[in-house]
């Protein structure tokens, strides 16, 4: 089956040899998003945004590719580390294995207690993070509505900002 996609005027389509016909035949069927002209095959499907062409995967979904990528990415650090383990010498010793604290003997438990400041920052971050989950779809879609949609999002943002201002005035954002 052919892909039926519109080609923008300013893009040159390589259509130079017989292979492409072969590839047309091989590419799978899919509902066309736009357009009428058969396009050359690449492992991607194409869709039109703005003034030029972008490619999009057909069979392997976007997240499928991310999965493949992460699966491979695991090996990028593991291979050097394993090489290091294999090639490096192994002569452990009592002094060498000590906790590294500039040569001073370690005292007390390593898991010391901390103050709450660290926690408070993470807490405010959490709220802002959730806020982002809502704001990003809004930022994408606000242009498709009249002005009130923009105002709603700004209201949302400023309410969180008011929270920040309150926390600020309470002094909880000051490091101590």
């Amino acid at each position: 089956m052919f892909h039926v996609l519109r080609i923008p005027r300013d893009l040159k389509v390589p259509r130079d040899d017989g292979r492409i016909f072969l590839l047309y035949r091989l590419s799978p069927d899919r509902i066309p998003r736009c357009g009428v002209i058969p396009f050359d095959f690449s492992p991607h499907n194409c869709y039109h945004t703005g003034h030029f062409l972008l490619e999009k995967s057909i069979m392997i979904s976007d997240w499928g590719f991310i999965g493949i990528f992460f699966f491979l990415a695991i090996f990028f650090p593991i291979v050097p580390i394993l090489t290091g383990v294999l090639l490096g010498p192994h002569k452990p010793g009592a002094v060498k294995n000590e906790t590294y604290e500039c040569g001073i003997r370690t005292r007390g438990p390593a898991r010391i207690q901390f103050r709450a400041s660290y926690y408070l920052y993470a807490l405010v971050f959490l709220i802002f993070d959730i806020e982002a989950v809502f704001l990003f779809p809004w930022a994408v879609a606000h242009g498709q509505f009249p002005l009130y949609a923009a105002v709603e999002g700004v209201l949302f943002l400023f309410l969180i900002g008011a929270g920040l201002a309150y926390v600020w005035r309470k002094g909880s954002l000051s490091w101590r």
Partner: protein
Amino acid sequence: MTLEQILFLVFALIGLGLALASVTMRNLVRSAFALIGCLFAVAALFAMLDASLFVVAQVAVYVGAIATLIVLVVMLTRLEQQERIPQTHRYWPAAALLAAVIVAGVAWGLWQYGFFDQTPPALPAADPIVELGRALVDPEKFLIPFEAVSVLLLSALIGAVLVAGGANKKERTE
């Protein structure tokens, strides 16, 4: 079995295993890291459901949330003393039984009413992110929940900082 199903089973098993590890481990920090792993597996399932926004939200939000949690755990409890005391109530078998009954009940219900052959319909051509954004600002759809969420977050922020920050002032430890 298709590749998709195999992947589902792999992620599901990883997720359940890490969830179990997370609720049974004695060391709470490890348990929190296991929880993060479990949430990643769930994020992978979200990806299989084409819910892109929730994949990234899950990772971004929960890693932040649970990082907070880990910090808190380390801050509040000494590991050595934490591992010595029992981590479960004495009536934990009752809790396990209740959970098992619920799972069995759902499984039985699914068996009875047969969601087993339900396959997903084709996704509409529109980008779900744009659609979600449109739904959130449309006064006829979800505008009220959208603004309510901001009020919820505001109150959570103020409440949390009020509760935790008040204690912070009295005691200053490093």
